[in-house]
């Protein structure tokens, strides 16, 4: 029964699909377009907007394609003058509650509502304009909520509640007064929000978007007193191209370095280098616990600030298992203001460090605790998302196409294959195991590619034999999946049983940072896969594929830090966690 096939026609073309396939999905298989607005590929249909209506031949009834399963023998009409008329009216009704603010909106040029209004040739307000007067919420300084622009599609609530299991957003009131709000009608910064930005990556309109800080960066670049330096995260190199017409997953690393130099940065670094440093520290932490303190395992990765925030709010009992490592970009930041500054005779107070991240929560991270300024200067001055960088490049109007590839600035630029796969789910685990294996056994891991940790399954498990001990690893991405893994740990602890896992990687965003909340719009699993593939091929293309083999990392330890977990490393590269209230009021 399960694999029963459905045979039907869509726009005159025969389709054969599995039972349960919606009309919308079936139409896609034969490249027939049906307009949608509330439906998102990651999410179940809410059937909220009605723009996807279609008809069955011979019946006047209209069906919503996004939530109606195709049935045997159906002959679906996707386009006719009546359908166009109905869709236009639906659009006009939505627009009657929506401000005509496009020119000044954060989504100008890439808003799904604006695009539809353009496609349908809407030229006037056909219904009386009725706007709700609702306050904006910029409290998190990470994402902005502008409820007046909300079309009530339900994508953000779905992502935040079902995929992320955070429940920071919900609809309040009803009818015309229905509005999107932080849970319990408070400010987002007081709510359980973990700043992952998945809501902003899924919103079709300008109702939720990243807190734009591009102007701060332009100002710093203009200030002759500032020495502006920049770093790019792994996931950015395979995402930014989408803003400029490159196929998803195209790796623009070297062109990006050149671009950032043209924009005016005097030092161009790579977060992947710091990821290699993170691995040195984290693998050493693992080795310590593995050899002397097995009871204290699992070790849990800490490079995702949204996950750290979630843990501090919902799983403070896991603090003892957390790696104390700062996230890679913080590490690079602190090294730029110490090691790099020293080496090049630059006054660290003049250095202005910009992180280009796939991530909104890193905007929050840079001030989350006093250790984020452990050198006496803030590790990072501004975080920009991939989307914000895209806008800066457009403002500068420099074309990737005609840029030669360039190299990053050493001593904080050269990275290994292990450092760059940090940007995808499973990547941190794979990189860490490559180095932990070497640290514990003294030998090189034979097969560097640990396939079981790769891919988009919500929870992945892998076992690696290290000196006769079967090391059990678990990888979770999409915050909603982490509970399952941590509950197992809690249970084992309660029952005083052996831990089910020794090493756990968590990334808040589905797919990991390649699917980060600050990445270019339109994310779905196909895109996540392509972006990840871009990183894995970068890894394969590297001669040096293990963090401990990075010559610049070795030099860093020899000349500056001593060894992993040295006093200096502890002070600069590590941080502490504390229990935080889920609600601030």
């Amino acid at each position, binding site marked *: 029964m399960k694999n029963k096939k459905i045979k039907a026609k869509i726009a005159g073309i025969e389709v054969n699909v599995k039972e349960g396939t919606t009309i919308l999905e079936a139409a896609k298989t034969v490249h027939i377009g049906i307009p949608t607005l509330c439906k998102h590929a990651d999410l179940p249909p809410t059937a909220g907007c009605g723009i996807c209506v279609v008809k069955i031949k011979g019946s006047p009834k209209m069906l919503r394609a996004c939530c109606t399963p195709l049935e045997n023998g159906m002959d679906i009409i996707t386009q006719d003058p009546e359908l166009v008329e109905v869709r236009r009216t639906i659009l006009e009704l939505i627009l009657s509650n929506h401000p005509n603010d496009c020119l000044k909106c954060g989504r100008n040029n890439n808003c799904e509502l604006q695009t539809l209004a353009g496609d349908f040739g809407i030229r006037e307000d056909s219904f009386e304009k009725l706007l709700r007067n609702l306050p904006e919420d910029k409290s998190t300084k990470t994402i902005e909520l502008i409820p007046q622009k909300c079309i009530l599609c339900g994508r953000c*609530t779905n992502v935040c*509640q079902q995929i992320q299991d955070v*429940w*920071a*957003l*919900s*609809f*309040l*009131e*009803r009818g015309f007064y229905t509005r999107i709000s932080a*849970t*319990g*009608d408070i400010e987002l910064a007081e709510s359980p929000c973990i700043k992952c930005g998945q809501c902003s990556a899924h919103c079709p309109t300008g109702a939720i978007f990243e807190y734009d800080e591009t102007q701060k960066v332009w100002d710093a670049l203009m200030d002759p007193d500032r020495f502006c330096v920049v770093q790019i995260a792994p996931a950015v190199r395979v995402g930014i191209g989408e803003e400029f017409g490159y196929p998803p997953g195209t790796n623009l690393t070297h062109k990006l370095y050149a671009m950032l130099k043209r924009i005016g940065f005097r030092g161009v670094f790579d977060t992947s280098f710091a990821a290699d440093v993170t691995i040195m520290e984290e693998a050493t932490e693992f080795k310590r616990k593995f050899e002397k303190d097995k009871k204290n395992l699992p070790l849990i990765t800490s490079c995702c600030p949204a996950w750290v925030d979630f843990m501090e709010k919902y799983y403070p009992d896991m603090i003892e298992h957390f790696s104390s490592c700062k996230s890679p970009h913080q590490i690079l930041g602190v090294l730029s203001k110490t090691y790099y500054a020293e080496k090049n005779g630059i006054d660290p107070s003049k250095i202005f460090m910009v992180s280009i991240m796939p991530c909104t929560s890193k905007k929050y991270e840079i001030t989350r605790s006093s250790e984020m300024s452990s050198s006496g200067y803030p590790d990072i001055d501004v975080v920009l998302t991939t989307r914000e960088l895209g806008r800066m490049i457009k403002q500068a109007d420099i074309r990737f196409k005609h840029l030669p590839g360039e190299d990053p600035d050493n001593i904080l630029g050269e990275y290994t294959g292990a450092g760059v796969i940090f940007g995808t789910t499973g990547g941190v685990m794979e990189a860490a195991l490559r180095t932990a294996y070497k640290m514990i056994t003294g030998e090189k891991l034979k097969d560097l590619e640990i396939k079981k940790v790769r891919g988009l399954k919500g929870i992945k498990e892998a076992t690696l034999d290290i000196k006769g001990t079967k090391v059990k690893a678990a990888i979770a991405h999409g915050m909603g999946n982490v509970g399952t893994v941590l509950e197992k740990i809690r249970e084992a602890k309660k029952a005083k049983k052996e831990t089910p896992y020794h090493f756990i990687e968590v990334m808040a965003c589905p797919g990991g940072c390649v699917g980060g909340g600050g990445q270019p719009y339109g994310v779905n699993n196909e895109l996540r896969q392509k972006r990840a593939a871009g990183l894995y091929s970068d890894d394969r293309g590297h001669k040096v594929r293990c963090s401990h083999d990075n010559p610049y990392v070795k030099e860093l330890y020899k000349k500056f830090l001593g060894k992993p977990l040295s006093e200096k490393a502890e002070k600069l590269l590590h941080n502490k966690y504390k229990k935080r209230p889920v*609600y601030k*009021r």
Partner: protein
Amino acid sequence: MVKTGELKKIVSKWKDKEGNLIMVFHEIQNRYGYVPRDVSMKLSEMLDVPLARIYEVLTFYNYFDLKPPGKHTISICMGTACYLKGANELLKKFRDLLNVSEGETTQDGLFKLNVVRCLGCCGLAPVVTIDEDVYGKVQKEDIPDILAKYAVKEKNA
């Protein structure tokens, strides 16, 4: 303020019944005259229902109040007759004097400002009631004196 033991009793009464969320909050509303925020938070834990869901329900139905009721309820009639006789002006004056919008309670918790439909005494339009007291043919200049009566009463109490 609200005792945990009391909440537990209410919860256990409704625990296994259909639609228990609404019934539990009905009881809270009836008992306290509104649903205090900390009660919602506690119940969210006890019932294992996200606060987001609770607020969705609480704001969906007009029945629930999320702010404490004012000691005195001011009702301004906006029925046709009163409206024609300038009730709108009265509303404006009340708003300015009390620094609240309709549906809200003043900072000191003394007054809640409401707008209501025809009170059935159109001959007296425009009509304002405060608790059980009815004021007819109200001029906006009268309002400060009217309010003062209640404020003074409060002070002497």
